[in-house]
């Protein structure tokens, strides 16, 4: 009689389904002082709370783009597990707010990451784009970015979280999010925002085929308004 057991050495370990989240963050002069400090604290909290979840920390990959008058990749996509959060600084080089450049660069980064997933056969969830800005765009780059986002969102290929801080131009943000109305942060409550985002990462990364993922939107009104 052979025993009712198996050789565990013959089992596979598969990579977890990935969730790529791109953060496109405003570091123009108007963010200096308290806002950038709170933003850094929020991003740090995001990394840490995702790292604490048993599954989400293997699933989530975060990429960070900053923008002012131009845009720059702060962090290419990397697994959140073992990553340290970036410290964003206000750059004197960035005199304006080129919202569209930041968005375009984040979308390019996402496309590149998805291509890498496909090349190595890793499955992935619908990727995210989180946009945080506090001012009026100083150019029209967001118009092109808006049509690119509209195509992706219509084809169900992207989830956008547009967030306005202080006196942000909400109509420009609304153009970038055809389905979801942009949120205006109450004060500088970045902590609550990133708490919400990390809970949403958990919700998506533990979803199963055929699930419609419900984001934890219950307490949004305590830290943001539509």
């Amino acid at each position: 009689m052979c025993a009712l057991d198996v050789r565990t050495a013959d089992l596979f370990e598969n990579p977890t389904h990935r969730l790529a989240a791109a953060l496109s963050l405003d570091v123009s002069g108007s963010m200096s002082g308290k806002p950038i400090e709170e933003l850094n604290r929020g991003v740090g909290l995001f990394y840490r709370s995702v790292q604490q979840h048993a599954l989400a920390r293997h699933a989530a990959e975060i990429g960070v783009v900053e923008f002012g008058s131009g845009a720059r990749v702060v962090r290419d996509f990397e697994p959140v597990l073992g990553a340290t959060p970036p410290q964003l600084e206000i750059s004197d080089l960035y005199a304006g707010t080129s919202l569209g450049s930041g968005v375009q660069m984040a979308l390019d980064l996402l496309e590149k990451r998805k291509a890498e997933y496909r090349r190595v056969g890793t499955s992935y969830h619908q990727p995210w784009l989180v946009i945080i800005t506090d001012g009026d765009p100083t150019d029209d780059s967001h118009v092109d970015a808006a049509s690119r986002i509209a195509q992706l969102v219509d084809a169900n290929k992207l989830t956008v979280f547009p967030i306005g801080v202080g006196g942000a131009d909400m109509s420009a943000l609304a153009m970038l999010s055809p389905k979801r109305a942009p949120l205006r942060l109450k004060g500088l409550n970045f902590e609550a925002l990133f708490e919400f985002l990390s809970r949403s990462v958990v919700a998506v990364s533990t979803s199963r085929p055929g699930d419609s993922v419900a984001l934890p939107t219950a307490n949004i009104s305590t830290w943001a308004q539509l």
Partner: protein
Amino acid sequence: MTLTAAPTWKAAHASVIGRSHAQAGTPCQDAAAVSRGDGALAVCVCDGAGSAALSHLGSRALADAMAVHLREHIDGLATGSVTQESLVDAAAQVVAGLVVVSGGSPLDYASTLVGVAVNGRHAVIVHLGDGLVVRVTAGVPEVVSAPENGEFANETFFVTCPGAAMHLRLRVLELGPLDTSFVLMTDGAQGRLFNRQENTASQVTEQLASWLDDHTEEDVCGALAQFINDVIVPATFDDCTIAVLRRDARVARFACPGCRRWEFQRKAKALVCAACGAPVVELLSEWGRYTAHAGEFVHHLVGERGWSLHKIERATAIRRRTLRRWIRSSTSNPFLERSVNNE
């Protein structure tokens, strides 16, 4: 009654609720069923959609009904007279019946479908959505139907989707003499048993199926549930189902009792498994007595490899007198008959 030979197949299956549903107190949305009769056997496993409210009823009813449907129509499926469209129609009728009894709309019963029907000559694979079918030939597992997902990990296809017939994959395989097992599973069980990048199946699939050689179907059902609980559930949040089909043990040649591969090699005068390196002589004896595998293995060496008894004695330390007794005692072994005919 069909003209095909009586089925020499055994089957077992188990579904275990995943951590998500266990924590939420919601039912397991996986289901599996076996249907036997008229010289054929069919197994179906179904994974109800998480977003569909009544998919636990959908997967249960579809597994039961489609197992019977596949078995009854195996000849038509094998010859091509039963089409994808008619299978989707049959599934739609099951769902329509559920709507009458339990209410809701057909979409509330969304479920994937993975089925295998076998008779003496053919295996018919029916597959819609994710999940997996593995065929084992000569101890080596091969993915014969891979999961179909959308671009994203949480997208797949269901029998209730519009255009389901386009996504239903139908495959007819001619059974070869070395095909020993089929293994079906739902998406949740793929984590440890399916290598997504290489599109390969774990050797463990054959190890699970081979349990049916020595144990009853009931015992293997229980052991499968235990295996899923211990090994698969910790690696996923999803419900998990595994079903195994195994041809009569006489068809299989001797396999390494550890990893169930069929290849052996000589290393330092002793025989070892070429895949896992286990020393065969140690695996052949249990509590100082030779296991049933020892006899099969000797038949394999004589019949398939043409080894002399002297050579076997040197490699296995089993005495020639014992070897002769084993060979005399089971002339029903098909491989031994072949070797006798060759001489």
